[in-house]
């Protein structure tokens, strides 16, 4: 296994987005919350556009619309006008305010501004305010996402009673993933808080009216209860303790933290199922065992098509680790594991999930670096978000879409990765993609596999 960091001064075709984007997605996963970006109007609009192109849903994000004066004299008055306007128009239960490079560089003190704003209301009802520091020059969208999870827990996990159950912190996964996680956890019949949960808000049914804040999301009561749970399950092998909401709950509220990888593939999902089983004292249900059994059956049916096929995986670090676990357990050869993130932990995560594999691991990679690597590695398949399409096309390698963003297909929010069923979906698509390639290239045009 080799590790590389980019020697280039310039980032070409980034394999990451900025922190406020992740923050916006996380806030969308809290019931009645309105995301608000404290900075220039463009930040909110670009992020909306980027998210809409993936989720195909309205993603209303407010902005404090900085102007020249704001940058000189501070953004407090703009921010406060904005909070009032959002409160009036959207009537949210919470306004989640994330910062930008601009706000951070001029040194905005968000908590103090929010305190003053609430004081000025003199007790009149006003949405809760959740400030989070997410400068775009620090980390990636994943860091912004995790910063919101941690901040919301710090600010709102206030329960003093032990209420039992588990907290589940899945990280930035798809709407379908969140929905399926709820099925899995629900099958153990245990109370839980899944934070955040944008499975309904960012994949909402069409209704008879335009709904300013779509139904769904983790409720504030569920968030409060997090301090009283028996355990936290955090699905990340790369998240640093100081950035983790789960670590905060462990240190400050005495909620034991269990850290797993994203449950992608049989082994990583087994770890989750075993943990849930241990925490609840219940065996996996017949339904879940059935899902697992069918998956193994499928692995066997398709094993020859994937064996020792070279695969390149890219995207968020935890997704890359999870997908690597899956491809390794089905006998594929991961040749490149790359991420725009740079936690310093990706290589170790890959070693844990695929100890017998020796892929090139690249943190802080952009698509130029990925393309350059793949030109030499000559993979049979790429797995990752739609931003890799350009590379796949250039190199003539088939692409199985996974993760975020999916800008060139519909259904990005419905892509399932997690659990046995997610592995089933991925496995079928991987096998069929490879079969299709062979079939298309064959002079015969076989009509059986």
């Amino acid at each position, binding site marked *: 296994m080799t590790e590389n960091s980019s020697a280039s001064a310039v980032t070409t075709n980034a394999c990451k987005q900025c922190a406020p*984007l992740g923050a916006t997605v996380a806030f969308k996963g809290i019931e009645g919350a309105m995301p608000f970006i404290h900075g220039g109007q463009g930040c909110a609009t670009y992020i909306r556009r980027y998210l809409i*192109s993936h989720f195909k849903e*309205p993603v209303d994000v407010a902005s404090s619309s900085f102007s020249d004066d704001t940058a000189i004299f501070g953004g407090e008055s703009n921010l406060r006008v904005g909070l009032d306007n959002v409160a009036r128009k959207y009537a949210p239960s919470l306004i989640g305010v994330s910062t930008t*490079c601009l706000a951070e560089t001029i040194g905005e003190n968000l908590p103090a501004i929010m305190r003053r704003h609430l004081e000025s209301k003199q007790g009149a009802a006003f949405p809760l305010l959740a400030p989070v520091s997410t400068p*775009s*020059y620090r980390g*990636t969208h994943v860091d912004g996402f995790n910063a919101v999870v941690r901040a919301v827990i710090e600010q709102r996990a206030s329960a003093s009673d032990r209420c039992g159950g588990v907290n589940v912190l899945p990280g930035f996964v798809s709407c379908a993933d969140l929905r399926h996680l709820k099925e899995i956890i629900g099958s153990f019949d245990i109370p839980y808080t899944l934070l955040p949960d944008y499975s309904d808000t960012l994949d909402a049914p069409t209704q008879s009216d335009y709904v300013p804040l779509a139904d769904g999301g983790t409720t504030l009561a569920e968030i409060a209860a997090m301090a009283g749970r028996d355990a936290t399950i955090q699905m990340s092998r790369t998240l640093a303790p100081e950035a983790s909401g789960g670590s905060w709950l462990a240190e400050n509220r005495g909620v034991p933290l269990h850290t797993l990888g994203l449950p992608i593939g049989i082994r990583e999902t087994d770890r989750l199922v075993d943990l849930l089983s241990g925490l609840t004292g219940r065996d996996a249900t017949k339904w879940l065992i059935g899902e697992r059994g069918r998956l193994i059956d499928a692995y066997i049916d398709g094993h020859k098509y994937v064996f020792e096929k070279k695969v390149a995986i890219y995207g968020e670090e935890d997704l890359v680790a999870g997908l690597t676990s899956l491809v390794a357990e089905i006998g594929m050869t991961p040749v490149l594991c790359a991420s725009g993130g740079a936690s310093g932990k990706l290589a170790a995560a890959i070693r844990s999930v695929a100890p017998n594999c020796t892929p090139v691991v690249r943190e802080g990679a952009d698509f130029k670096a990925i393309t350059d690597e793949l030109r030499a590695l000559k993979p049979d398949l790429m797995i990752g978000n739609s931003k890799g399409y350009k590379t796949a096309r250039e190199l003539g390698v088939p692409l199985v879409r996974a993760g975020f963003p999916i800008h060139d297909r519909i259904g990005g929010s419905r892509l399932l990765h997690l659990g046995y069923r997610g592995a089933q979906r991925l496995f079928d698509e991987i096998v069929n993609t490879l079969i299709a390639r062979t079939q298309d290239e064959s002079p015969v045009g076989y009509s059986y596999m």
Partner: protein
Amino acid sequence: MEQLLAQRENQVTTVGDASFKIDCEKASLSGSVSQRACVFCGSRVVLYPIADAVHLVHGPIGCASYTWDIRGALSSGPELHRLSFSTDLKERDVIFGGEKPLERSLEELIEKYAPSAAFVYSTCIVGLIGDDVEAVCRKVAAKYEIPVIPVHSEGFKGTKRDGYKAACDALFKLIGTLPADDVPKRSLNILGDFNLAGEIWIIKDYYEKMGIHVQASITGDGRIADIRRAHGAALNVVQCSGSTMYLAKEMKEKYGIPFRRVSYFGIEDMSDALYDVAKFFKDPEIMRKATDLVSREVREIYPKLMHYRQALEGKTAAVYVGGAFKAFSLVKALRTIGMEVVMVGSQTGNAEDYQQLRDICKPGTIIADDSNPLELSSFLKQKDIDLLIGGVKERPIAYKLGVGFCDHNHERKRALEGFVGMLNFAEEVYSSVMSPVWQFAPRRERRTVAEARQ
């Protein structure tokens, strides 16, 4: 209107109101969820299609990431513009300054790609940390002997319109820097067309068929050398006037090049664009060619258009676009296929634009400046429209309300300009408005039931 914030009351009005007045060209109201982007966006969209230049975004990663290949601006040759370059500033750069990473990035890019020029876009933070971008650009330009042009596009320093201006300033610096003595007399520059879905090729073909040389396309399928020689052209034709009118005016002042405001959307405006140019050159041969071209093209598409018109007659539309000028053409183009616009708005229109919209729209039409999702959704419901024309951010508003949609912005994949574009446009509208899926949308379901009862 319940959805309107008090501070925005004067930015929405209705055609036919006794005192038609509209506030515009204002900074977006904080917390209003404006559909606008920023100064950087304005500059980026205008300069982006120049295909043989390096476009380096100086700042943290977001601004470059969100604008990577964002606009389907096609190139007939190099495709440098489709790469997203960023200095990807980190916390240490914010503290110690971004000049060194900028210089290293430029050197690396110029050595690797040998571009004809480089544009350096300043993002919000660059203005604050005090990088001397001009000095770095001068230094690198001297070293490699290509234009390296700073674009003053700090996001917060105004609105998208100011970004257009910053882009025009950058272009103006290029123009006149190569000799243009051999540019033919019968020549023009196309301004404000970005070659989305290959549109500028259609327009160029029309002008060339009329015997007119297109010197520089600014900026669709643009090339640096052509732009540097653009001062040799006899005429500037300006579409998307919001974005490039500044440049046309500057070129008129400095080089005495007159300009014509044109639009290539819809039969009427497309024809006028060709006729206006023919008139300018005062050559009956050019006018004859223009007339022939128009009649041939219209003959070709008209019967097909009437097929769509039959289905679409009497349906209503709302239009919400970036620049208001496009909206005029859309009002007319929709009439050609039997549809009436009952709500129209733009992100960056000015008073003159909105006056003109008032003049061509029917009484009762809502006109809105710098609108937002809640307002737009309330307009769509109030007018019970069948189609919304807009961009990516407007699309889900329409769809959630069971309303058809036509993307007239970055994501369009089919040319909507020219005569063939009018036909494509009609097809796009038809394929959304007439789809049977709306019968299942809850809002439409009710309407379908009501229609059945009548």
